[in-house]
């Protein structure tokens, strides 16, 4: 049997979700995707973030290469122009034809532009695609005032974009209230109050009649009530309309007010054609949110994979941040259910509004509106979706906690309750993950993808994991090892507060036994972070891993590799020659590292001081490649040479590397500085990465390459040099203080309650009031830096430690090299046998 030909028309978020899910099922089908836009699917929900410094490329959900790997035949920039249902094929505008067995329409929607005279002016535009953003950006460049028509969810999102572009922003809404669909009047009023507090002018009840030339601005909008508004540009964001023209043209059934009619299997009036997402009309309704679109896609995928899949409508509850304001809307917000009653708490000082809509007996939650404070959103949503009985006093859920706010025990939820709506993860799926061995929030998160989308459910998932662990009688022991009943973070605080300066003092005061290879290096690292004494100073000598003891990296045969610091990857020809000469003299295997340095392999322990004496004499310093410490700060060549560079990335990388070199941390630290947005230094895969902008630097944090890659988060934008360094100082010291042993910044951040927002609050807003301390401690470490190798070479007692044998000048006969590609490498077992025999 040949594989089924599936053609998907449209490559928006929902169309892509269908393709991805279908590929994951491994069903035997040949998939063709045809997208109108010139690029593969991207995240439309977060479009406005591009104006807050996010790169358009970061919104991408998939690459052409990935589609290739999945063997999906993808065509972009050539929209489908017709469907021939009899021949079962589609034709594109460019004249290509594709035959299908099953066709999926995911054509989405287009922005509704009201019939207003002058709306076709070139300074009037819409807000829907990445191309629209380019258009808005270019018009904004010579505008002072910008106006959004539409005060709904999309309109406010768009107002945020204009505000980020630095425009004086107005919102014009036809209806009397903002977000009238999702909020009740009171919630809407509070939202307006908050939005106006952010310098966005709101005009409601305004019916735009015509747009013409203005006197003070480029345009003038005239309203039906004879008032007017001058503006330099207008963006229409007044709702969406389904794109059903293809369906209409081929005779599929469409709704009276548009939308391709589908049944509960997402089938159109032609059983071989499905429609999903915003182009589809289900039960007389268009679902204008991404999550229901995903559910439709999944229902279709199940059917294509030969199973039963149905879409039975979706909850339209939503929680979002509009212009920085938290807004939540659940179920029947307007109390339209017969007999329903409402309970409202409104606090104008705190600018928070909360409304519950319940059944007459107050037992069940029908709906809720939250503005300014969404803390209870997840809990309320669970009450609503699962029909759980409310507490006796439902108002206690929204009143400020005079006593305890009743918390919804996770045990009360059915297994089918969706906890993470972004990834549709149920309570049952989370429990299964725990059955399979996950026993921490981080484990569960990575196994199920729960709370990796918007992150709104993080607190709930964490509660569930904690409750479940204690229910299962699992005591989570986070002790670092059997000698200390403490985490690394606790040990750090104990050492800091008690000014403990040695391992012996530490174990006497807070531990038991003699210590081990876990706690000794961990405490040595804490001592280094706190007091910065030489790692080979007497009290610390037996504590270090061999790499720290011998200030080099042990390789499989017991020899070491040597990595001098080459800050920013910049090196003079003379120094390069020295490296070559030293390598040649000591017969070291030479390799360029990923961190823009040079690694010299095959040094015997006894050779290390001599090698370093030559390197130090030539001006090299230790590279700390052996330590849980700052490794390298990569850079691209930047504005001094590159045609595209906008800042001197090399100079910044060298400055930062020299500032943080030697900093001991819970794990190694890597960084990079790129001189422009092309990002040649790959800064977004680093613990902290810096990317130049026209106005300064963007700082990214908590990225990682390696085994578990993680894209760094944009932390702050357009920083000047001084602020950049200040933020990095605070960020690094906060990590050093609170990270667990061998926890990279990426995992550390994912385990911080509140994640990146919390980190910003600590580092940027100084929420904990410790910023000055963190900076002072960094200043101390920077001020007390010493090149560990230079210090060793100045101290004969320390050099003695590097003897191969304490009683002989012989070499380790176990180290045997062979030559390969004109350099040495350790002999393999069979080669070694042969060589040793031939010698003996």
């Amino acid at each position, binding site marked *: 049997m040949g594989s089924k030909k599936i053609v998907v028309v449209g490559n928006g978020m929902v169309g892509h979700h269908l393709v991805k899910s279908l590929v994951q099922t491994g069903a035997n089908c040949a998939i063709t995707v045809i997208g109108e836009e010139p690029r593969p699917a991207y995240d439309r929900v977060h479009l406005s973030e591009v104006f807050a410094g996010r790169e358009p490329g970061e919104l991408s959900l998939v690459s052409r290469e990935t589609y290739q790997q999945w063997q999906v035949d993808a065509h972009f920039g050539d929209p489908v122009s017709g469907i021939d249902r009899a021949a079962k094929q589609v034709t594109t505008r460019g004249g290509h034809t594709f035959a299908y067995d099953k066709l999926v329409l995911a054509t989405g929607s287009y922005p509704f532009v009201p019939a207003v005279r002058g709306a076709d002016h070139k300074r009037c535009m819409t807000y829907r695609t990445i191309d629209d953003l380019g258009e808005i950006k270019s018009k904004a460049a010579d505008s002072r005032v910008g106006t959004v028509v539409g005060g709904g969810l999309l309109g406010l999102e768009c107002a945020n974009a204009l505000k980020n572009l630095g425009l004086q922003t107005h919102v014009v809404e036809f209806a009397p209230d903002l977000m009238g669909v999702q909020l009740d009047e009171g919630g809407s009023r509070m939202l307006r109050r908050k939005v106006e507090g952010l310098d966005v002018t709101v005009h409601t009840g305004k019916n735009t009649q015509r747009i013409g030339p203005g006197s003070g601005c480029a345009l003038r909008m005239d309203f039906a009530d004879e008032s007017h508004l001058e503006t330099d540009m207008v963006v229409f964001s007044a709702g969406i309309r389904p794109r059903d023209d293809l369906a209409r043209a081929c005779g599929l059934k469409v709704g009276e007010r548009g939308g391709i009619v589908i049944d509960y299997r997402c089938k159109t009036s032609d059983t071989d054609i499905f429609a999903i997402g915003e182009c589809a009309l289900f039960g007389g309704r268009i679902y204008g949110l991404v999550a229901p679109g995903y559910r439709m896609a999944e229902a279709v995928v199940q059917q294509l994979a030969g199973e039963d899949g149905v879409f039975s409508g979706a909850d339209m509850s939503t929680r979002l941040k509009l212009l920085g304001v938290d807004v939540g809307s659940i179920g029947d917000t307007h109390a339209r259910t017969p007999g329903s009653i409402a309970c409202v708490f409104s606090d104008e000082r705190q600018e928070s509004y909360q409304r519950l809509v319940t059944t007459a007996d107050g037992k069940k939650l029908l709906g809720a509106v939250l503005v300014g404070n969404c803390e209870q959103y997840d809990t309320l949503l669970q009450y609503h979706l699962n029909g759980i009985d409310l507490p006796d006093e439902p108002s206690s859920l929204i009143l400020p906690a005079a006593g305890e706010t009743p918390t919804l025990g996770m045990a009360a939820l059915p297994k089918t309750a969706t906890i993470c709506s972004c990834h549709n993860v149920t309570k049952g799926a989370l429990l299964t993950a725990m059955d399979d061995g996950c026993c921490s929030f981080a484990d569960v998160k990575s196994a199920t993808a729960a709370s990796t989308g918007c992150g709104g459910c993080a607190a709930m998932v964490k509660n569930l994991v904690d409750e479940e662990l204690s229910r299962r009688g699992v005591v989570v022991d986070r002790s670092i090892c*059997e*000698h200390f009943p403490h985490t690394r973070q606790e040990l750090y605080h104990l050492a800091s507060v008690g000014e403990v300066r040695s391992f012996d003092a530490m174990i006497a005061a807070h531990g038991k*036994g*003699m*210590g*081990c*290879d876990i*706690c*000794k*290096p961990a405490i040595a690292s804490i001592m280094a972070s706190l007091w910065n004494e030489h790692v080979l100073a007497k009290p610390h*000598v*037996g*504590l*270090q*891993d*061999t*790499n720290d*003891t*011998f200030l080099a990296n*042990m390789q*499989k*045969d*017991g020899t070491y590799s040597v990595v001098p610091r080459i800050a920013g990857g910049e090196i003079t020809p003379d120094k390069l020659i020295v490296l070559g000469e030293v390598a040649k003299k000591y017969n070291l295997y030479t390799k360029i590292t990923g961190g823009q340095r040079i690694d010299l392999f095959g040094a015997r*322990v006894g050779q290390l001081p001599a090698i370093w004496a030559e390197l130090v004499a030539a001006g090299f310093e230790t590279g700390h490649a052996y330590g849980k410490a700052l490794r390298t700060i990569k850079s691209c060549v930047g504005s001094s040479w590159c045609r595209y560079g906008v800042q001197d990335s090399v100079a910044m990388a060298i400055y930062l590397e020299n500032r943080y070199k030697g900093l001991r941390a819970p794990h190694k630290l890597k960084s990079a500085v790129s001189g422009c947005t092309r990002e040649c230094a790959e800064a977004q895969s680093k613990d902290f990465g810096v990317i130049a902008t026209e106005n300064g630097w963007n700082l990214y944090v908590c990225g990682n390459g390696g085994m578990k890659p993680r894209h760094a988060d944009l932390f702050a934008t357009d920083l000047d040099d001084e602020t950049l360094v200040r933020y990095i100082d605070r960020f690094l010291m906060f990590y050093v203080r609170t990270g667990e042993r061998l926890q990279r910044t990426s995992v550390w951040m994912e385990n911080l309650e509140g994640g990146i927002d919390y980190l910003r609050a600590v580092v940027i807003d100084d929420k904990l009031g410790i910023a000055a301390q963190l900076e002072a401690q960094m200043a101390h470490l920077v001020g007390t830096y010493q090149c560990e190798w230079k210090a060793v070479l100045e101290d004969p007692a320390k050099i*003695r*430690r590097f*003897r*191969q*044998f*304490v*009683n*002989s000048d*012989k070499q*380790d006969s*176990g*180290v045997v090299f062979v030559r390969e590609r004109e350099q040495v490498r350790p002999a393999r*077992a069979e080669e070694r046998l042969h060589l040793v025999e031939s010698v003996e």
Partner: protein
Amino acid sequence: MTALALREWEVVCNAGDLVAGSGVCALVRGIQVAIFYLPQLENPVFALDNHDPIGGANVLSRGIVGDLGGELVIASPLYKQHFNLRTGACVERDDVAVPVYRARLEGDEVLIALPT
């Protein structure tokens, strides 16, 4: 335990060559002996073969000394398995052990007795 025939005790180095809380390596009749020094103990010197049978390299003297469940151990710097300082047994693997040598500190001298 089978009593092994022992050579005479021989002086291999001085106390000053040892590193408190850590190890050094001595070459005794062609055998690499890792010597660990824990001055807080009554018998403070321990000797094991320097060869890590799992990593396949002569590195044990460069590991970290500690105790696990009350037993003194050395952790290999290569793959971190632990070997009992008194018996040579590997904590992680039953089928592996390291030769243990008799060792003592006498005044300023470190003495080792190798098997014949």
